[in-house]
């Protein structure tokens, strides 16, 4: 226990930096993952067979292969096809976003499908255009189905970013690696990182419960 405290006192800046890295990596992943996921979900539910096929394949590949493999793939592949320089962090971030988008698109699709079919029909029957049916009637109701699952996805994204440490992208797990190699106190630094992860996700899940309750009250 004392060793852990001493380690924290010596290296808390490193851990803080790691936490910061994890936070913004997660935030960017969830934000852009949701945008991309929405696009994929709309493609998958749309009328065009080509777009639907593309979205199907996209989702199946990303769900059917390990995320670590996807990270490697982007890390190695992306710099080769891009005409400009990419940092490791950018490659890893892109991979995380693409991976999250596949799962989020399924969450969004399920949330939209869960809205009663009668709502579509009623909205169409009063003469709303398809865009207004979606934006005014269906999506506002779907959000309530989507949000809880999206929150879970957010938490698993936070944990998923630890894989970025394989590529020494600055986040929590990477800070464990640097502290561990500097001090050889593996178990102790691992414990600190574990506690930080736990607190982070604990706080997150409590916040999300609050948010969820807010939304259901308005219903």
């Amino acid at each position, binding site marked *: 226990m004392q060793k852990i405290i001493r380690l924290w006192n010596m290296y808390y800046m490193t851990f803080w930096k790691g936490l910061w890295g994890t936070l913004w990596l997660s935030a960017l992943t969830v934000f852009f993952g949701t945008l991309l996921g929405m696009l994929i979900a709309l493609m998958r539910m749309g009328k065009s067979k080509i777009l639907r096929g593309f979205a199907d394949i996209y989702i199946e590949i990303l769900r059917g292969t390990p995320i670590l493999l996807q990270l490697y793939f982007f890390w190695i592949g992306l710099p080769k096809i891009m005409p400009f320089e990419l940092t490791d962090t950018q490659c890893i971030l892109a991979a995380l976003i693409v991976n999250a988008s596949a799962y989020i698109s399924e969450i969004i699709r399920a949330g939209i499908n869960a809205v009663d079919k009668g709502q579509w*029909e009623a909205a169409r029957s*009063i003469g709303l255009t398809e865009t207004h049916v979606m934006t005014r009637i269906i999506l506002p109701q779907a959000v309530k189905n989507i949000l809880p699952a999206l929150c879970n996805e957010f938490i698993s994204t936070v944990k998923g970013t630890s894989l970025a440490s394989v590529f020494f992208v600055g986040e929590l797990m990477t800070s464990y690696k640097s502290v561990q190699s500097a001090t050889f106190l593996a178990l102790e630094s691992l414990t600190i990182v574990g506690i930080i992860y736990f607190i982070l996700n604990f706080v997150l899940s409590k916040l999300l419960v609050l948010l969820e309750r807010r939304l259901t009250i308005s219903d």
Partner: protein
Amino acid sequence: MTDEIIRTENLKKNFGKLEVLKGIDLSVMKGEVISIIGPSGGGKSTFLRCLNLLEIPDEGKIFFEGTDIMTKQKNISKYRQKIGMVFQNFNVFPNLTVLDNIILAPILEKKVPKKDAEEEAMALLKRVGLEEKAAEYPRKLSGGQKQRLSIVRALAMHPDVMLFDEPTSALDPEMVKEVLNVIGDLAKSGMTTLVVTHEMAFAREISDRVLFICNGIITEEGNPETIFTCPQNPATIKFLSQVL
């Protein structure tokens, strides 16, 4: 009552291998009140839903005021604005207040100024005794109130025709009357009305014409007195003996 508003010719609809509509020919006059009766699964609701293209017919034609509406499906939402529809399960919008349920479509699709839309919505709510509920969300309404709301939501678009798809089938018995009264008043005011219903007394009272739809075709039609007192078709006779 001489102008034709809707005409269908040989309307057919299949769900997979199941032929639900096998060729329906009907001409509806302006201001006419038509009840559609018949056994479940006979195609009554499907026919009604084809009229505002919630179901796209597989064959046949629908004319609205002389225009074939199947060929210009691009403007499908414009067409639907002229056809109000009320559903069995109300389908009010739970994410909007009672007032917003009504003014949404007029503001969005007809560009009615918000103030005017609200004024009219309040007048409509008053007409059906719901003016005090304007600011509530629909979850606070009873089934009968929801259905009255869904009727005025449709009326706010000033439709030329109103379609009612079993409007009282999902209601508790004590609420049936309040909804039937609203529909009855509307029909008497000259609104062209098609109503699929199992309320035979109501159909008999308000209709100019009754259609009996069974197995995807109109097997019998006529004025309510004839249909209810001396039906000719064996299927009609059997059905009426079961429900009356």
